[in-house]
């Protein structure tokens, strides 16, 4: 669980349910299917409404905590784990300030229940830098002054880093699309676009070896 880059395959499921529906899961490996069949016998598991012990895998570290089922992931990260880099602005899914990654997919921590994360790997803004060295996107945000009040910034960075991880040479439209849900009241969008595009350009032109390694996950 220490590698936040590695998607988890331990989600439980029950493929037999496919007989009730015509739909079936196409992409699961044989291994995962066998695992599901074993786990299926567990049946439903009820938790709460009181405190329930859970484990959250955040930025490669497993944290044990007790939560009520109604606690959101944003609250768990900020209030229980002290990871206040993730911001909460609207708390309703409308602004994307609270963007984190679940298994590398940008999602909203304010609209996710902590108890529902399971074994998925959580990456927050605190997990983007390497030690005290900023991620290139963070450094480019600083260079381009891509923030004013800074409330939207962690969410913006999470969207932009995820974009570059899946598309190393985005166009301006790709960047706009990636942050289309991230609202910035201060109007920093042009600088966000410039910073992200510069990182993409720089990786391609300046240091092809490092960027190639990054893409391989090295």
């Amino acid at each position, binding site marked *: 669980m220490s590698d936040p880059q590695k998607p988890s395959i331990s*989600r*439980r*499921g*029950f*493929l*037999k*349910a*496919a*007989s*009730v*529906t*015509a*739909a*079936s*899961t*196409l*992409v*699961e490996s044989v291994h995962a299917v066998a695992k*599901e069949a074993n*786990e*299926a016998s*567990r*049946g*439903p*598991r*009820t*938790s*709460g*409404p009181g405190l*329930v012990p859970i484990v959250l895998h955040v930025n490669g570290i497993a944290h044990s905590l007790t939560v*009520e*089922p*109604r606690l*959101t992931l944003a609250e768990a990260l900020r209030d229980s784990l002290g990871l206040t880099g993730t911001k909460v602005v609207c*708390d*309703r*899914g409308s602004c*994307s300030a609270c*963007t984190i990654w679940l298994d590398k*997919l*940008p*999602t*909203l921590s304010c*609209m*996710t*229940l902590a*108890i*529902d994360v*399971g074994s998925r790997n959580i990456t927050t803004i605190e997990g983007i830098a390497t030690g005290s060295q900023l991620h290139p996107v963070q450094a480019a945000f600083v260079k381009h002054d891509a923030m004013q009040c800074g409330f939207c910034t962690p969410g913006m960075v999470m*969207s932009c880093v995820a974009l570059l991880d899946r598309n190393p040479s985005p166009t301006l*439209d790709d960047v*706009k*699309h*990636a942050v*289309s*849900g991230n609202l910035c009241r201060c109007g920093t969008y042009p600088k966000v676009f410039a910073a992200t595009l510069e990182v993409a350009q720089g990786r391609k032109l300046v240091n092809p070896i490092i960027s190639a390694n990054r893409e391989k996950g090295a």
Partner: protein
Amino acid sequence: MNRFSFVDCTSVHDALDQMNHGAMVKAGGIDLLDLMKDGIIAPSTLVNIRQIKGLHGIVVSQQGLTIGPLTTLAELAAHPDIQQKYTALSDAAGHAATPQIRNMATVGGNLMQRQRCWYFRSAEFPCLRKGGSECFAQQGQNQYHAIMGNQICAMVHPSSTAVPLLAMEAHVELASKKGTRTVALNKFYVTPEESIENETIVKEDELITSIFVPSPAKGTRSAYQKYGEKESFDWPLADAGVVLVMDGDHCHSASIVLGVAAPTPLRAKAAEVLLTGKRIDEATARAAGKAAVSDATPLAQNGYKVQLFQTVIYRTILLAAGQLKRDPSAVGGLA
């Protein structure tokens, strides 16, 4: 948010067992959490179906497209076969909400989400839908409300995926402990005239277990467009799905659906009749747009939506027919 128990289910059978009074099904959780945080609903139990593997996935066959209800909007939007053969559906899924929400929201939950109305979604207004005696939108702030079927309750149904799915004559399979049944999507939504308590025909103990879209007839082309207040992402002010079965440049048959025009997604029969057998060009497309809203009954502040619907309909007809490009001022048009 109220306190609740949380039940993780790994099979449809288990989930159906848990769907007792006071319990609600949770898929992506976006609409549920929204309503719970605002105190509009307070389920005692959330039945978590998110991890039921058999309800997740897309199967394309000769007969058509079978979609597991837990398939996310992002997965629908990115599927190459859907992009190619069921274009309006991938476009609708890809333009709903935000990238983050599309990674979380499921198509089953998208069809089942409650309508949008700020009076309904505010605990301070005991409106008709919440057992009260008044629809506050009739005399209140109604710029985002319904322009048709709005006499009793003027909420709009915002499901972007329902628009093309209805136009493509999709069916929904429902399961309960008593068995399964299949319902055409055009019988799925309930108007306020039919019932003020229910918004769909889905019963409390029923689960959507699959969505089926029949294979398109030869010569079918489809398109979806959505207009909002912003170009980046927004709730729709007007959206339309168009499916045309073309015979050369003549329209053999048309299916046109309007989103957020009424309390349910709405098929524009008058516009469909107008296109049938005709050559598709700007004049016929504009006439169809006009016909679609001819019986609109706008409220004090939403007359502009009548014009907006005419525009989205005619432009989406021409987009489906391959005669116009996607409107850059539509939501997601960018550039």
